[in-house]
């Protein structure tokens, strides 16, 4: 009794410790990263894996598109570099979209940890780079070859030191060579922090292997997840969704089958891969589908190989959710980040009153750059050159019993970048960043509001904006159970011209860019919304009087 009790408590203590170790790893990355999207918005992840490549723990800081793709990526590394070939000091790298996290912008770095000369675990981390060459952050490419430089699985460091050849190639192919080098070294050093912490923990607990702990974590998490699934009614449930796409609308189809402690989602029937960079590689499709399922079914179970195991995702090779090389994939989140809503669409039938309405979904990456240099206009000879990113976030769908969150990333785990930071790094001026009244889908519970962002170049020179990730401009986030859709997104110039989805546009000198992010869908019949909630929304200006009359029948 005493021995087994002590052992169970010890296992729990070590599990908590492992989660703390990877959080340290992620914090080290956040503090040393260079790209704004990584360091301000938090577009990064970190995790630890056992010697079979199974994810044991992920950092709290991070985003699902990274975390769950990395869960598979480490296995791919180990296929190329078998465990037996790894040596202390080794670090491996890739940005292969199919073997990493879904597009060239994310570099994945893997570092094995050794104790007494034997590999005991692996650490992996990833973050979004500022620039990887090619045509830049855009969906305009027709193949991955145009999208930038692909680094296959390579050894980035050995006991002898860094492989400067690899770093040199990466830097030489980036518009921001200094930052990309710095960011890759940040990944290396955060993994080192993780390795040092793990080996220290193993010394403290007098362990030479964590295999027993790994089995404990994975078995417990798998069983807890299966248990949660077993509480759901078995059967098959289907959902469909239309997205704007690049040149033509996209149709997504899913069929979810709840079996004995396991769930399969099959995307058969979804659109074929696009000729433009909005395809979601299978690893990314898996990541966000499972994220959606997990949120609704077993949110409290820590994310690891065990809790992911009961979920299977199927797709037709060559479809938009399983594109094959060399399909372009830069803006893969346009499709990938809509997949939790597909999961919720299926789950709504199995678990009524337990899932939210649809959300704005895909984050709108506001990739903006100076345009005068390529236009060669002598009037702007002294204008500043810049290449910056900000993030536009729309509304989250209304939740059972609650309104949706306004202007908040979901399912992505990133956040916004402060206006003052972007303005400090460029001549841009954000004249407006404000809630968009009436944009939240009407319902008993209202969808979260989108926002209006209005940007000018303070030097009155032209600048470009990539609309690569702008979606739900035609097909809005839908409501559920009688709730109505959120408002569609809009991109336009202040002078009036509407900007088409996905392409790259020039904002002419003196004009302003206006983006209006989609609102989340509503939940339940708007007629059933409490009167005092409607009054409060009117008083706060979140719903206009006309909107209240039109959407809620208020006189």
């Amino acid at each position, binding site marked *: 009794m005493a021995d087994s009790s002590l052992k169970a408590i010890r296992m729990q*203590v070590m599990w*908590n410790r492992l989660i703390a170790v990877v959080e340290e790893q992620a914090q080290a990355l956040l*503090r040393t990263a260079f790209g704004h999207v990584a360091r301000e918005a938090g577009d990064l992840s970190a995790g630890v894996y056992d010697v079979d490549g199974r994810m044991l723990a992920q950092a709290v800081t991070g985003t699902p598109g990274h975390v769950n793709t990395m869960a598979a990526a480490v296995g791919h590394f180990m296929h190329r570099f078998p465990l037996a070939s790894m040596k202390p000091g080794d670090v491996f790298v890739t940005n292969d979209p199919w073997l990493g996290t879904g597009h060239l912008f994310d570099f994945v770095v893997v570092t094995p940890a050794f104790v007494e000369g034997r590999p005991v675990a692996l650490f992996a981390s990833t973050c979004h780079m500022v620039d990887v060459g090619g045509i830049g952050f855009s969906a305009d490419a027709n193949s991955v070859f145009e999208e930038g430089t692909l680094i296959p699985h390579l050894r980035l460091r050995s006991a002898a030191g860094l492989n400067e050849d690899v770093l040199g190639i990466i830097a030489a192919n980036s518009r921001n060579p200094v930052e990309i080098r710095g960011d890759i070294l940040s990944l290396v050093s955060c993994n080192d922090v993780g390795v040092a*912490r793990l080996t220290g923990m193993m010394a403290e607990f007098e362990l030479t292997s964590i295999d027993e702990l790994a089995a404990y974590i994975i078995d417990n998490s798998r069983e807890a997840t299966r248990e949660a699934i077993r509480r759901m009614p078995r059967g098959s449930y289907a959902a469909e969704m239309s997205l704007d796409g690049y040149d033509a609308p996209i149709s997504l189809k899913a069929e979810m089958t709840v079996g004995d402690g396991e769930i399969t989602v099959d995307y058969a029937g979804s659109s074929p891969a696009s000729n433009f960079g909005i395809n979601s590689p299978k690893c990314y499709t898996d990541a966000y589908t499972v994220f959606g399922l997990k949120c609704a079914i077993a949110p409290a179970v820590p994310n690891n190989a065990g809790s992911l195991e009961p979920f299977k995702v199927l797709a037709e090779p060559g479809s938009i959710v399983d594109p094959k090389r060399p399909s372009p994939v830069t803006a893969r989140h346009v499709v990938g980040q809509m997949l939790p809503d597909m999961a919720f669409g299926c789950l709504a039938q199995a678990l009524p009153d337990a899932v939210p309405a649809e959300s704005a979904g895909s984050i709108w990456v506001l990739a903006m750059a100076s345009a005068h240099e390529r236009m060669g206009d002598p009037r702007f000879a002294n204008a500043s050159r810049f290449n910056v990113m900000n993030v536009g976030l729309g509304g989250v769908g209304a939740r059972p019993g609650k309104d949706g969150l306004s202007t908040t990333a979901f399912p992505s785990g990133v*956040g*916004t970048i402060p206006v003052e930071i972007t303005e400090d790094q460029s001549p841009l001026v*954000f004249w407006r960043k404000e809630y968009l009244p009436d944009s939240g889908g009407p319902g008993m519970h209202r969808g979260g509001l989108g926002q209006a962002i209005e940007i000018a170049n303070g030097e009155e020179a032209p600048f470009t904006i990539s609309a690569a990730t702008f979606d739900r401009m035609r097909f809005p986030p839908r409501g559920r159970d009688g709730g109505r859709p959120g408002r569609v997104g809009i991109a336009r110039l202040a002078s009036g011209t509407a900007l088409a989805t996905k392409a790259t546009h020039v904002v002419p000198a003196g004009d302003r860019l206006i983006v209006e992010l989609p609102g989340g869908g509503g939940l339940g019949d708007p007629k059933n919304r409490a009167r005092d909630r409607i009054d409060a929304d009117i008083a706060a200006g979140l719903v206009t009087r006309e909107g209240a009359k039109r959407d809620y029948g208020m006189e």
Partner: protein
Amino acid sequence: MADAKPFRLAVDIGGTFTDVVLEGPTGRVTTKVLTTPAAPEEGVIEGIGIVLKRAGAGAEAISLFIHGTTLATNALIERKGARTAFVTTAGLRDILEMGYEKRFEQYDFYMDKPEPLVPRPLRLPVRERISARGQALLRLHAEDLHRAAAVMRAADVQAVAIGFIHSYAHSEHERKAREELARLLPPSVTICISSEVCPEIREYERFSTTCANAYVRPMMAGYLTRLRQRLDSMGLKAPLFLMMSGGGLTTLDHATRFPIRLVESGPAGGVILAGQIARECGLPAALAFDMGGTTAKICLLDDGEPERARRFEVARIYRDLKGSGLPVRIPVVEMVEIGAGGGSIARVDAMKRITVGPDSAGADPGPACYGRGGQSPTVTDANVALGRIDPQHFAGGRIALDAGKADAALSGDIGLKLSLSEHWPAAGVSEIVEENMANAARVHAIERGKVIDRYTMVAFGGGAPLHAGRLAEKLGIGRVLVPVGAGVGSAIGFLRAPIAYEVVRSWRVPLASLDLGEGNRLLAGLREEAHRVVAAGAGEAPLSETRLVDVRYVGQGHELPMALPNRALGADDLPDLRRRFEERYRQIYGLALPQMAVEIVTWSVTVSTALPAAERIPAPTQRTAARPIGRRRVYEPALGELVEMAVYSRPDLAPGAALDGPAAIVEDETTTIVPASFAATINRRGDIVMETRHGR
């Protein structure tokens, strides 16, 4: 002739207790009275009365009164501040509510973001615009201020925060707006501007800090004014200084203008005490471990000095998660605080794991063993079940504990769910809370590039001495010190604090293109402002100065604080700064990036009175075996079972007394557990010094 005013007084108002310490020629008198939230001055006055009576002194014999309080923190947590309006740049009024636009808990789609302190109808837009370079792109529209004032008058607003974009770079619009609004609003309305409260880049954090300051200001100003009147009328004319979260003292007048700087003043006091002990005992590296009823605080001090930070989160609404509170950018002592205290509630989660906290049973209903209706098992219940706390002598015997109720709660909520019996549920709760604290301490050390097992732990607050030994074992720490008066450690620390003030400004400039003249002008301005504040309270006392810049590689978002010399910068200082930055960076992150440009982001100057001289306390020359007063069965984690151990009475232990673990040393306010792996002696200060018997 004896000093006519030989006494110094310190009062720390906490959530449950108000701690009072009076130091004078005959030594120290302390008391704890219940906090009186509706009129906190009542508890303060009551406590002062008690200590004066016990010291046989009159109010006029007090030369100095130092005060810290959690009132501002509690007002923010409980949302009991003033009705506040926020006047901001047109087009950007929702920044305050949008926040980071990020979910701090990925998997919980029911999570909510913290409500802003100012609701949307009172966030009032004004047309104006300053660029990132500090130029006016759009003039300040006075007519918008008139419209805003009308709204504020109609809503009977008591406080106004003004926050314009890029005001850290150019504050003229904010100042003009304040002048104009002061004319348009009743004189009782408080007005704060962001360029004074927090002149730093990142609009959400600056606006949040300014609104929080305005929100607590009327209440704090009212309280401090009433307190001053009560003190005057009882003849306590001594100057009153307030403890700030950064570890310095400030004047009543200044505290009334920037009350947000008073949050976390209690924990800061404890850190100062730890610093004093570190200097007196010659500890180059000290870890302050403070554990009370609701939270545990851990802070690292090198050469008696803690690190300082400028960002803090108040009123977290969702477990202890970063991001779930309101950010405030103020000078704070760098520490980690987690929801792990005596009242922290233990339960079993879906994974059949024991979790502890961060929610607390507080004082009411309190732990199950209090017998006041609390049903959930807490850390205190576990300590009773493990024999660490003697139920008959808790809080000096003032609160009788019911061990049966502790056992019942532990067995019902933990034991049955995990099939654990006997002492195992309690052992699990204790191990988990200790592991949580150890993890927090470890992460905190790593984030600062420190090696934790080189530190000596200084444990104070009612709960810390119970857990300090085990925590030290987990952290590999070989020495633990439990100071005299551990139960009121924060208030004792107040009496050791310097009068100090820090002034901060954002000015981002690469080292390579820094204009030394401009840098020196900026530093001189900061210095003058800080001197003005400190001189108001310090009189003729000699002042010291610290200049810091926050430095990073160009393109990064996080900085490392680096010291500058206390003189005008010369050309040689910049390469030296770079060299020191890279050394520090390598220490924390393993590698430096010599190809990258380095920039300064923020500049600050701190002016401070000198710390009281620390006299090195020599080690006792003679050791005598201490005599136990009894024996009882207490849990010994290394063995996993309850063992018979000796019990000592702390007041009986004179300097030089020595004893071996396992042992329990009891006193009115707490109990120190000496694990089997430690031995303890009493030093000349009267502190318990536990040292590992296995060597380090």
